[in-house]
């Protein structure tokens, strides 16, 4: 702010003489506006300064009255005639009054001093009302006047008498457009306030008043901060109302983070409530609501109200992002986008589709997901916190050391003993290096360079220089190793690169191992201050080397390294690494095994252990390597390498949940390591935490713009959602001209998929230049595929074709003859050259080799079309479309992404060529004539989400050929029957015709997709009925298989039915909430359908109860968990607890009806009587453990369940106990409800993401299966944890 001395003087006068702006400006009225504004600004800032420096509180400008008005009486406000009480709240009373001077009705709000902490708070309030009085907007309740009266502070404001928005909504969803218009108006008003520096902070429907004609007016501006603000978490009760509309950063109490973004959030929350009838988060208790606000994603509005347009949902969810920076940048931006929606233009916000992606992962890994999910999530949390504690302790100790050292250093500095300063610093650096904390060492050394004078001797300076060199060397070595590890994940020649990098690093460090004689090199290594570290990395280098270099290095190491254990390891490894698989030396393996178990291994520094296990991991000693690491982790919980290596190894051992934990620790230890973030991101991605994964990759990309993390960032995105952004990010990476093919793979394909032909051509050129001469058949195959994706000509065509031939030749050389990928690219090359007849045989071969890839068939169809057989082309196209899921579901893995893009690009090309009536069909003006055409058109329908059209195509196709539905199912079974991987079978099953048809019909029937909204109610009903018919037909087929003799067939049928129960596309016909919207008789039909499914499925489940946890892992901490896993028949078979069903029912009802909360430790009457208490106990544990609040509790419980009571006393907050009790109660309710209704199953949502499912299973006896169904943020199922109890009849 430009300083005007005159204004400053006037402000001083205001402060010194306690005058108003008007008074000081009486001689210079022209300065009044500036003085006023500056005064406001001054007060805002001064207020902030004062909160930090309490001594200033007594200054003028901060003093106010504190007395409380007499309650009940109408107050006497000068200039007003107070007429009546309008309402009363926690902070004051609102009266209706008449302003005498203007003869108008106003509302007067009196603020009681009571709720305010101090007079200072009141003072701040006065300043803010003054600011508010300047705020004028038709959608903001105008503040006319403010002042003090005896007993309090009042302000007079516009009287709005149409009630509040909360009263208007009252739980009913409002139509989308008026709701959007209302929020738009409010957003503009909020924007005006923000521009004036005022953030509302407490926007909620009850603060939005409505005039008689329905115009919204925002009230209580500027009140929220003082009343809500930081104190909100500690206050409960009605005064504050609900935190349902509070932004997560606000709920967390991050005072400083509270800016305009919280209002954007609140506007989104209001919009949410308007369109769904309920706020995004609302729980029984305030604490629980706050927890949800912080941790959970809101249920997408369209799930609660199917009529919510997708764009509006997207806008709404963008406002509700947990991270403020991902919300709209301003209220104006929100208003703009809402306007776009209202005008029917495309909105700027992009939806997130990660739920689908997560689901996809589970579908691919059903075993891992269902088994690992629950157990590992919990164990993960638990272990995570133990690790955290360890790390905390380490950190604290180090911090204390550091402080002491710093103090010594400071003292020395003060006393002018400069040499001693340097000595201290050197000592600190040495300690840090010993702990492998080179960043700290580096920081310490930097302090030694500050202005220290001549009294420090040259010798000392040399030592500082050497120490710096040491630190740099450690950093360099670490960087090399990380880079090599990263390279191993890609398609890069690691060994040679590693050799060069290490050689250079050591040369620069003064130990040129290629030149120096071994004895001399060994002496230098021994003399190094970082001898241990150097030795470790030399081992790393050694094992990456081959030939004479290795012998040389080993000779050096044998001289320099005295450690017996390492010497033996080197020796064994030396021969071990030379094996030939044919003459496998089991001896060496055993020797190594023994060495790894030897006691000496425990005294090795962490870097050695992590290096050794890194070398052994992936070989036959993987398991031992992992055990070694875990063991070392116990001893060195705060070591970077151990945690990184453990995370890395676990990731490759497909234990991503656990990997995430260690990666997180690694990140915490080295926040500057891009690789650690990349590792974390991959783990998170594998566990389905896509949002968090992206955040981690972003961080990695920021640290290393051309690293693997940056690359991952470009490839993990869900198609269509963030593809444009990903493409741009990718472009940026390629600007750095990375040498690895991995960095290039897929970029050209993506460009073409996005329709960026120009950019594609550029990429093609670059690919040909860079990889045109490659001898690696994979690189050749992939690049030529990319280059031939779009017709080329001239030199480019020639080179692309040559590359395809090169791939063919190289593949044959690498003993890969007849590789279908290479055949495909060869066929494509012939086709692009116009040699259609030559292309066809290649493509046919490739198609039979790649039954699940549409590409070869698509090109084949085009080739057939070109050669004149249009009919055959249509048929081939239809077949190609059938083998691939074209809908929005994201590709299953990162490497599959380019395949997806290739498939789509070729499909578009083939469709345009072979289906001349496509545009007319899409306009609804043409209906296909035969089944080939119908099936061929399904691809684009799926891709564009035209579910109605797709369902119709299916229906017509089945009508024309009734066998088709069953035939395709059979075909699918035939194709998958022989395979082992269950995931693939389900994958293939998804391309089974009737099921796909049912899914499309279900989506259309629920009004989803591009054409869903345009369907009439009758049409939708028709499609829902159709979907049900199809499902029932399929169900009958699967039920038959459940009785089959073959175990494999039974398993498959069971898994498929399990899949039905969680398929998100069927949610509209399955989820209780969605079913509520259907007519009762229809709803009943679905209940029956799903009960049948559950019964059929559980028949198998009970016959062979899933072994809940074994097989996940038998490692330490999980064993602890195992103890807690549900024990199916511990006590239920004892017979003493046989009971009368009615009695249970009565007792249960009594208990629940009385609203009695069971005390912790009160082992639940119902359960005690007819089920094993271990089950109950465990469930209770699970329920409470699932909230972050109770992680502490979980930790203690894992270790000592019997101490449950005492532990709770120590750690439990009230909220935690509440969650716990709440969980227990709801769980019981689920069962009671099932018994009461005599229903076969019932489900109760315990808290978002945790559902209790009680299923009655009749199989000789009556079983009750109690399941916990965990769902993700989009309500997609994550896993089901089962426990069985028996109820004897």
């Amino acid at each position, binding site marked *: 702010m430009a300083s005007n001395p005159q204004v400053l003087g006037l402000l*001083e006068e205001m402060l010194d003489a306690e005058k108003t702006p008007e008074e000081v400006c009486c001689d210079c009225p022209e300065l009044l506006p500036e003085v006023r504004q500056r005064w406001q600004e001054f007060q805002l800032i001064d207020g902030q300064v004062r909160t*930090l420096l309490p001594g200033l509180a007594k200054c003028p400008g901060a003093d106010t009255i504190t007395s409380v008005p007499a309650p009940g009486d109408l107050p006497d406000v000068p200039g007003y005639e107070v007429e009546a009480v309008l309402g009363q709240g926690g902070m004051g009373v609102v009266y209706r009054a008449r302003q005498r001077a203007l003869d108008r009705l106003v509302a007067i709000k009196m603020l009681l001093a009571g709720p305010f902490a101090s007079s200072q708070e009141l003072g701040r309030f006065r300043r803010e009302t003054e600011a508010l009085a300047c705020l004028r907007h038709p959608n903001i309740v105008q503040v006319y006047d403010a002042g003090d009266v005896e007993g309090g502070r009042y302000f007079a404001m516009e009287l709005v008498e149409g009630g509040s928005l909360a009263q208007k909504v009252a739980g009913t969803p409002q139509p989308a457009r008026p709701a959007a218009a209302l929020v738009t108006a409010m957003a503009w008003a909020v924007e005006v306030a923000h521009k004036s520096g005022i953030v509302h902070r407490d926007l909620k429907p009850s603060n939005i008043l409505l005039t008689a004609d329905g115009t919204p007016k925002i009230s209580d501006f500027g009140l929220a901060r003082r009343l809500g603000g930081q104190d909100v978490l500690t206050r409960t009760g009605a005064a504050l109302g609900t935190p349902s509309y509070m932004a997560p950063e606000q709920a967390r109490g991050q005072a400083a983070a509270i800016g305009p973004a919280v209002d954007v959030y609140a506007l989104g929350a209001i919009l949410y409530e308007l369109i769904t009838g309920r706020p995004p988060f609302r729980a029984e208790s305030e604490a629980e609501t706050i927890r949800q606000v912080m941790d959970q994603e809101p249920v997408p509005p369209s799930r609660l109200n199917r009529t919510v347009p997708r764009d509006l949902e997207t806008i709404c969810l963008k406002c509700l992002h947990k991270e403020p920076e991902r919300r709209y940048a301003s209220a104006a931006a929100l208003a703009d986008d809402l306007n776009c929606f209202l005008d029917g233009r495309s909105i700027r916000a992009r939806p997130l589709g990660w739920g689908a992606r997560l689901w996809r992962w589970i579908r691919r890994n059903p075993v891992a997901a269902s088994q690992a999910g629950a157990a590992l999530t919990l164990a993960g949390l638990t272990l*995570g916190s133990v690790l955290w504690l360890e790390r*905390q302790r380490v950190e604290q100790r180090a911090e204390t050391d550091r402080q002491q050292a710093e103090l010594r250093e400071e003292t020395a500095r003060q006393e002018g003993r400069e040499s001693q300063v340097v000595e201290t610093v050197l000592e600190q650096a040495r300690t840090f290096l010993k702990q492998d904390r080179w960043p700290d060492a580096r920081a310490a050394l930097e302090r030694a360079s500050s202005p220290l004078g001549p009294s420090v001797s040259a010798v000392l300076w040399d030592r500082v220089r050497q120490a710096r060199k040491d630190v740099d060397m450690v950093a360099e070595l670490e960087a090399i190793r990380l880079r090599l590890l990263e390279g191993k994940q890609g398609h890069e020649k690691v060994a040679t690169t590693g050799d060069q990098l290490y050689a250079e690093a050591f040369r620069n460090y003064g130990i040129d191992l290629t030149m120096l004689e071994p004895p001399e090199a060994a002496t230098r290594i021994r003399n190094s201050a970082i001898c241990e570290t150097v030795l470790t990395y030399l081992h790393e280098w050694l094992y990456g080397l081959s030939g004479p270099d290795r012998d040389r290095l080993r000779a050096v190491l044998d001289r320099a390294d005295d450690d017996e254990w390492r010497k033996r390891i080197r020796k064994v490894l030396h021969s071990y690494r030379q094996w030939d698989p044919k003459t496998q030396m089991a001896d060496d393996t055993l020797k190594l095994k023994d060495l790894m178990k030897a006691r000496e291994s425990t005294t090795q520094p962490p870097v050695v252990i992590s290096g050794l296990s890194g070398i052994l991991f992936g070989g036959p000693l993987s398991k031992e390597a992992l055990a070694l690491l875990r063991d070392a982790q116990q001893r060195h919980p705060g070591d970077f390498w151990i945690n990184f290596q453990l995370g890395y190894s676990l990731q490759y051992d497909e234990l991503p949940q656990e990997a995430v934990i260690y990666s997180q620790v690694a990140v915490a230890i080295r926040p500057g390591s891009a690789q650690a973030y990349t590792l974390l991101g991959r783990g998170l991605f594998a566990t389905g935490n896509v949002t968090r994964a992206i955040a981690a990759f972003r961080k990695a990309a920021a640290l290393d713009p051309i690293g693997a993390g940056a690359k991952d960032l470009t490839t993990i995105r869900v198609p269509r959602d963030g593809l444009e952004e990903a493409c741009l990010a990718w472009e940026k990476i390629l600007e750095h001209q990375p040498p690895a093919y991995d960095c290039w793979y897929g970029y050209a394909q993506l460009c073409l998929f996005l329709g960026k032909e120009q950019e594609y051509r550029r990429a093609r050129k670059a690919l040909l230049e860079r990889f045109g001469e490659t001898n690696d058949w994979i690189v050749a195959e992939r690049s030529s595929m990319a280059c031939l994706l779009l017709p080329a000509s001239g030199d480019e065509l020639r080179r692309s074709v040559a590359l395809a031939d090169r791939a063919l030749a190289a593949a044959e050389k690498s003993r890969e003859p007849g590789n279908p990928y290479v055949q495909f690219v060869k066929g494509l090359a012939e086709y692009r050259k116009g040699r259609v007849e030559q292309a066809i045989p290649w493509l046919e071969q490739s198609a039979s080799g790649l039954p699940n890839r549409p590409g070869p068939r698509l090109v084949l169809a085009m080739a057939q079309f070109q050669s004149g057989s249009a009919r055959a082309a249509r048929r081939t196209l239809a077949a190609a479309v059938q083998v691939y899921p074209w809908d929005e579901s994201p590709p299953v893995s990162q490497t599959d992404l380019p395949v997806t893009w290739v498939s789509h690009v070729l499909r578009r090309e083939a469709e345009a060529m072979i289906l001349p009536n496509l545009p007319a069909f899409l306009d609804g003006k043409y209906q296909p004539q035969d089944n080939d055409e119908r099936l061929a058109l399904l691809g684009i329908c799926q891709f564009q989400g035209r579910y109605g059209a797709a369902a119709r195509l299916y229906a017509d196709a089945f009508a024309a050929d009734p066998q088709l539905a069953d035939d395709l199912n059979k075909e699918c079974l035939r194709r998958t029957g022989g395979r082992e991987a269950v995931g693939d079978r389900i994958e293939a099953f998804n391309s089974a015709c009737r099921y796909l048809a049912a899914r499309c019909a279900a989506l259309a029937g629920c009004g989803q997709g591009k054409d869903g909204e345009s369907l009439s109610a009758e049409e939708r009903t028709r499609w829902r009925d159709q979907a049900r018919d199809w499902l029932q037909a399929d169900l009958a087929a699967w039920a038959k298989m459940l009785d089959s003799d073959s175990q494999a067939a039974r398993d498959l049928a069971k898994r498929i039915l399990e899949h039905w129960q969680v398929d998100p596309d069927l949610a509209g016909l399955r989820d209780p909430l969605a079913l509520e919207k259907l007519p009762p008789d229809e709803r009943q039909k679905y209940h029956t359908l799903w009960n049948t499914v559950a019964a059929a499925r559980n028949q198998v489940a009970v016959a062979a109860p899933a072994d809940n946890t074994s097989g996940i892992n038998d490692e330490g901490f999980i064993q602890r968990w195992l103890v807690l896993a549900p024990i199916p028949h511990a006590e239920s078979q004892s017979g003493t607890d046989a009971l009368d069903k009615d009695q249970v029912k009565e007792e249960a009802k009594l208990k629940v009806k009385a609203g009695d909360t069971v005390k912790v430790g009160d082992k639940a009457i119902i359960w005690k009587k007819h089920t094993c208490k271990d089950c109950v106990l465990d469930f209770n544990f699970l329920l409470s453990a699932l909230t972050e609040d109770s992680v502490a509790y979980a930790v203690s419980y894992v270790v000592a369940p019997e101490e449950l009571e005492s532990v709770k006393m120590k750690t439990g907050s009230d909220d935690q106990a509440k969650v716990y009790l709440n969980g227990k109660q709801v769980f019981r309710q689920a069962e009671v409800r099932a018994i009461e209704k005599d229903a076969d199953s019932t489900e109760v949502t315990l808290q978002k993401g945790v559902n209790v499912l009680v299923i009655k299973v009749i199989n000789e006896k009556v079983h009750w299966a109690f399941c916990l169904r965990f769902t993700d943020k989009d309500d997609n199922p994550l896993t089901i944890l089962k426990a069985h109890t028996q109820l004897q009849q």
Partner: protein
Amino acid sequence: MDNKIDKFVVTAWSPSTIRHMDEAPTTVIIQRYLDALPGDAAAEPIVRELLERAVGRLRLLCARFLYKSYPRLTRPPVNLETDELLGGVVARLLTALRTIHPPTVRRFFALANQHMRWQLNDLARRLDERPAAVALTDTGVVAPPASSASGLSPDGRRMLEVIEGLPEDEREVFDLVGIQGLTHAEVAMVVGVSEKTVQRRLNRARLLLAERLADLRPAAAGELTPPPGDKSYLEE
């Protein structure tokens, strides 16, 4: 296991402690200090008392910084340990004040003020360096960009920086009131000017401070507040 559980029960600063520190009978101590100043062994306990008072103030301010700017760090699971955090800070203040034995009350306060500001700044800096680790436990997620995790501290640090740059007279008074929590009368006594002058210098300091910290107000820096009634920006 027990020791792990104990981690969750960390004593924090209770409000009563803070209030007590705030209300220490400063005037009396200062008077005694002034009386005893001519310098002999008798002054030693008073010096200690004065030092303790300064330490108390520093603790109070540190706690305030912590609670106002980083409330999240003070709650479970982080339970940032005020005492541990302050250990080093206080030790360094003591060292500094003891080594240089200030000959007058005024010099004592000048030194104490400067050191306390430094220590506060150091505290804020160290708190800022914590977010990565903190965010990790808090949510199990990677820390978001530092800005969202680091609370108000840049403001706190900026403020200290700006105080440092105030003119000598203004800064002295501002420090005595703001940092040391003296009353205007006490300040007048220490500095040797009238209360009115104290008041004027203090006001001027506050104005200058606000002017130099102008970017701390909620609206973005440099963005002019539209004059009331100007609705041009309402149009799309």
